[in-house]
């Protein structure tokens, strides 16, 4: 036996030596060949949503810092990007930040620049609806690259385009408004409503969510008005808004919201908050503070976010994730209170989803990124506001919250009052790949049953 051991050692030592040398060589080869993962981000630094550029990028950089070992270059300027960071030994390199302006044409030009000139492997973005439809179509033509959404919420992006390499962990505009129709009809007692929405894909989707649910529970939408995005003088559109309705749903967003409300007041007198429901822009940090206290009492659709949620996870996300990596997010000031913005959260969860996918394949994006794309569709996130998983079109199934505006110490504030878990893009079977896309006349006002009607939960919030 001992002779056998002796002979074994004689045999084993050279093998061990060769093995060690081979392992060292492999390690050095791996280190030398750990190709960087080239990441591009597409944000809007101009146009109707240009003010939220900092929030978009803070979401991306925070996720990279929290989950991929990166660090913000400047904790007061998200546009400076990040340094460091790696996944599976592959450095995560920021090759460029695109500057779009809510227009699909610009988004495509910037995407081409980021992907083709700067050679990005993956892209995070864009911000808004029609941009995302164009980018999803671009993604379809570039199957060896991977795209995750930023915060765009047009329905067509995933339900109709169905690019196999485009992933969206955030909800669409209709999902975000789940619960509002039920609220308006069954709690506020609205029998009739008017709708005003920007004339483009996201706002059509946002309005579609309210209209589908309000009509499903028996309400009637008597007027739909669609001012073009980037309108500066809303007076003619405000004049068209009827006053003989029980309430008005407003899906005018970004730079247009305040001018629209001013024009409305000039046309019809002071706003009665109880007769208004707004979409996510009425509760978005950075935007709602600009509203007058006169709109107190109005309800606002969310974006799957609830900054005041009294859970450890929600508070950790804002204070110990966004608030940890950024002190301020320009131009709106302190970072932590902006964590629940659609834009910060949207870019954050999409980046996080991408990181989880990359971690699952140990940063290996070889072979046309097929492995990454396969695992990305199965990634689920336990976010500060609840769980998110993807459906077969790679679209998030998300928790939805809605808020109410009120005055606190004389200032306008937001509190979360409604919660509906697991809202999917079909909106309770209302939409499918075969139904027309949301638009000026779709969906029609018809009664139907929706699974969450009458089941809205009321989450515990921090006062």
């Amino acid at each position, binding site marked *: 036996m001992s002779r056998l051991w002796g002979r074994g050692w004689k045999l084993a030592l050279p093998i061990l030596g060769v093995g060690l040398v081979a392992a060292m060589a492999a390690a050095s080869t791996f280190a030398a060949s750990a190709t960087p993962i080239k990441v591009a981000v597409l944000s809007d630094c101009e146009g109707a949503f240009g003010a939220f550029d900092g929030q978009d990028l803070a979401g991306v950089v925070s996720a990279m810092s929290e989950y991929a070992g990166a660090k913000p270059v400047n904790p007061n300027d998200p546009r400076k990007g990040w340094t460091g960071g790696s996944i599976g030994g592959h450095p995560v390199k920021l090759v460029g930040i695109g500057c779009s302006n809510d227009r699909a044409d610009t988004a495509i030009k910037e995407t081409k620049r980021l992907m083709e000139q700067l050679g990005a492997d993956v892209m995070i973005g864009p911000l808004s609806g*029609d941009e995302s439809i164009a980018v999803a179509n671009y993604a379809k033509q570039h199957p060896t690259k991977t795209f995750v959404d930023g915060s765009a919420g047009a329905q067509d992006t995933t339900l109709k385009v169905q690019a196999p390499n485009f992933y969206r962990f955030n909800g669409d505009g209709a999902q975000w408004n789940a619960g509002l129709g039920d609220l308006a009809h069954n709690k506020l007692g609205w029998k009739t409503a008017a709708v005003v929405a920007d004339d483009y894909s996201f706002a059509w989707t946002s309005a579609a969510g309210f209209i589908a649910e309000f009509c499903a529970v028996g309400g009637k939408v008597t007027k739909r008005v669609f001012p073009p995005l980037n309108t500066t003088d809303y007076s003619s559109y405000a004049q068209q808004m009827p006053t003989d309705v029980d309430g008005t749903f407003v899906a005018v967003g970004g730079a247009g919201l305040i001018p629209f409300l001013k024009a409305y007041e000039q046309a019809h007198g002071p706003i009665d908050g109880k007769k208004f429901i707004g979409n996510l822009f009425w509760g978005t940090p950075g935007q709602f503070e600009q509203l007058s206290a006169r709109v107190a009492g109005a309800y606002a659709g969310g974006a799957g976010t609830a900054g005041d949620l009294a859970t450890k996870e929600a508070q950790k996300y804002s204070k110990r994730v966004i608030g940890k990596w950024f002190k301020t997010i320009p131009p709106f000031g302190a970072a932590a209170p902006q964590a629940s913005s659609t834009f910060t959260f949207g870019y954050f969860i999409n980046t996080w989803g991408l990181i989880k996918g990359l971690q699952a394949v140990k940063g290996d994006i070889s072979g046309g990124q097929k492995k990454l794309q396969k695992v990305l569709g199965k990634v689920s996130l336990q976010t500060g506001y609840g769980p998110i998983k993807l459906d077969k079109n790679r679209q998030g199934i998300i928790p939805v919250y809605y808020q109410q505006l009120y005055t606190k110490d004389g200032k306008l504030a937001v509190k979360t009052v409604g919660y509906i878990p697991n809202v999917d893009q079909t909106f309770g079977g209302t939409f499918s790949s075969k139904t027309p896309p949301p638009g000026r006349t779709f969906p029609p006002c018809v009664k139907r049953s929706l699974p969450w009607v009458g089941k809205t939960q009321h989450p515990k919030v921090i006062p």
Partner: protein
Amino acid sequence: MTTRSVVDRAIGGGALALAALAPLIFSDYWVGALLTQTLFLGIVASSLIFLSAYGGMVSLAQVALYGIAGFVLGNVVTNGNTKGLNLGWNPWLAVVLAIAVTVLVAVLFGLLASRSVGIYFLMITLTFGVIANLFFGQVTTFSGFGGISGIPAPHPIGPVDEHPNRLYYVALVVSVLVYALLRYVVRTPFGLTLQGVRDDPVRMASLGYNVVLHRTLAFAFAAVVAALAGVLFVWWNGHIDPASIDLSAMIDVLVIAVIGGLYRLEGAWLGAFVFVMLNNYSRQIDFVGPRFHTLIGLVFLAIVLVSPAGLAGIWERAQGALGLGGGAAPQPATAAEAPTRDADV
């Protein structure tokens, strides 16, 4: 043949040879994105320069016409999209239809605009451009704000992303043909009459020429050129929306023409090259970043001050300084000059 024209031809031949060999010399991005873009922007700018240099008409409607061709093509060839007509027709039939519809619209525009001259012509064509932009922005049947995505280039040109060189060569061939055609047309009786109309419309009318008809036909002919650029643009971009033909896009093409030189057809591609390169590379400079239009505005200002005849004019002057003899070039017809001529009449 003068020394100057020999030098011009040698440079032209060299540029063409370089363009033909570009895929062997430059990166895919340079060929597929920058040079292809240069070519179709050069084509649309050449339609403007043709009208300006030989017809005395500085038109801001060329981008609208190029957009009309693009929107027609997008509506006709796509299938299963959520926007547009989704007719799914044969792509080559769509090209013919796109050019035909563009020319039809151009005839209507031309009939209205060709009675005016100078700054008034410029303003009317600007109005056409704005109308086209608002039409496609508002009429969701054909486009709407988001426009039409996923427009494929036909086989064997496409898929463009897999074969960027093919579209580049198509754009190069179209550019050469357009250049040759424009050079030919200005030497035909129609072209000579058009130059007569540019120089003295009253005299031409008294000689029995139908000035309005000539201007309209020239406008329609330039629309064919602009439509070709529009077709190449949507094949290249795969997408078109109202922002593709907004005021900024109209001014971009005017800037290209002015930078290149409003009185030499070659200036169209020269201006387009400078514009595309500045647009692409200036964005990577932190100081410039998204302020490209400020930069191009400064370049525009410098060109207008230093050489009103554009980069082509600088070359002309350099040739003069080098004593290379004089070649005949068409006289510039700027918006500022044309009313003066009519005032003289």
